[in-house]
């Protein structure tokens, strides 16, 4: 599989605390990679660095062979690295449709596709409702729809299942599997059921470093990982 993202020696510290400590990895096209690790392991920080929400202290980021280390978030988004957020992060005072429209404008997508995605994700009935008035589950779907409208080549999802009831998780899993056929996915997730259902590859982070990286089965049996999660040694 062709490499789509390459990260070289990426580091970020807050004061004395090394949130991301000289991390290197690469993502392969159309492979669903899940990033796991305990609280404060640096997962979200890593994503923030890749999408330039934060400036790295050092390191290089290449996307499809192009150095994007010094680009702004909006430029990176336009190149096709799209992310969602841990806490739903939308335009509360705008309607569902308007939210999607903003995304569509960001990628010069025409309105037909908005309609299509809305019906795919069963959002039609909320079309003209302000997002601040729809349920949390629906907001999560709007997040996803926006992400797709941005025509991502690499889609980064930060805890997509967080706060969703079981049945919604199942539904989300189904959708993500479909998306995974066409788009490279990098997912931060804690729900292990979710993780092992989806992941083709798992990266484990702890204390700012990637300490394990491989096929799911290898990860389950990886002693370090078991120690981190179960205190076994």
């Amino acid at each position, binding site marked *: 599989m062709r490499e789509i993202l390459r990260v070289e020696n990426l580091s970020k510290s807050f004061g004395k605390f090394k949130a991301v400590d000289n991390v290197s990895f690469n993502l392969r096209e159309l492979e669903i990679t899940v990033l796991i690790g305990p*609280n404060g392991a640096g997962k979200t920080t890593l994503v923030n660095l890749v999408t330039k929400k934060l400036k790295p202290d050092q390191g290089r980021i290449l996307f499809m062979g192009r150095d994007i280390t010094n680009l702004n978030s909006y430029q990176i988004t336009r190149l096709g690295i799209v992310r969602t957020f841990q806490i739903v992060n939308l335009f509360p005072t705008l309607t569902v449709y308007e939210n999607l429209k903003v995304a569509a404008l960001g990628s010069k997508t025409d309105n037909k596709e908005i309609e299509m995605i809305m019906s795919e994700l069963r959002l039609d009935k909320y079309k003209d409702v302000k997002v601040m008035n729809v349920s*949390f589950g629906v907001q999560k779907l709007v997040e996803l729809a926006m992400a797709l409208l941005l025509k991502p080549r690499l889609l980064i999802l930060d805890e997509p299942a967080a*706060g969703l009831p079981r049945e919604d998780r199942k539904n989300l899993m189904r959708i993500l599997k479909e998306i995974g056929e066409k788009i490279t996915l990098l997912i931060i997730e804690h729900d292990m059921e979710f993780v092992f259902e989806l992941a083709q590859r798992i990266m484990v982070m702890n204390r700012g470093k990637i300490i394990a990286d491989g096929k799911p089965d290898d990860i389950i049996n990886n002693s370090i990982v078991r120690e*981190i*999660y*179960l*205190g076994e040694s």
Partner: protein
Amino acid sequence: MMLKIESLNAYYSRLQALFDINLEMNKGEIIGVLGPNGAGKTTLLKSIINVEVSKTGRILFKDVEITTLPTHKIASLGIYYIPDYGGLFPGLTIIENLQLAANSKYVSIDELKEFYPPIIDLLNRKADSLSGGERKIVSIIRSIVVKPELLLLDEPTEGMAPVMVDRTIKLLKKLNEEKNMSILWIEPGAKIRKVLEIADKILILAAGRIVYVGESEKALKEIDEIKKYLFI
């Protein structure tokens, strides 16, 4: 009865983080709360001291309802909350941090020394110049000055070197025995064995619900079953 929680539901804005939590804690008890990330452990503590979360249900401390009291009143009743970052004031020296806790310019160091000798060398350093581990242990030491009856700990040993972890746990036991503080103690699942060393009872949170409660001996026997809740 030290702490009593009745059918507590807690929310961050629209998102529900805790579902129908019930908990009873006796004087002098150490209760460990374990669970995977995002299970709502921190939310539990924050609902007790009434910050950042909106909630329904009742919380009683020594039979006094504290559900809606302002945080500083709850603290005055004898509850001391230590957040996962320790909660020392950055930019203030350790001694200043202790003075605030004692609500006086004069803090007797001797006792602190007995619990944690290295404190002496830290007194005049700024809190943010301490290492993560030091910061957390000092914030626990600070409780000696605060003199609470109930200690709320959010992952006190997280990010500590193994040696420090053991030291901290001994410290907690000592506080529990000599300063008769009851302790509600949160840790990630990985720490379960450590927690069981001194906890009287453990409680597993998953996706905002209590999925397991048990005396420590019982829990030790059932540990493999418990792990299912924590991983896979």
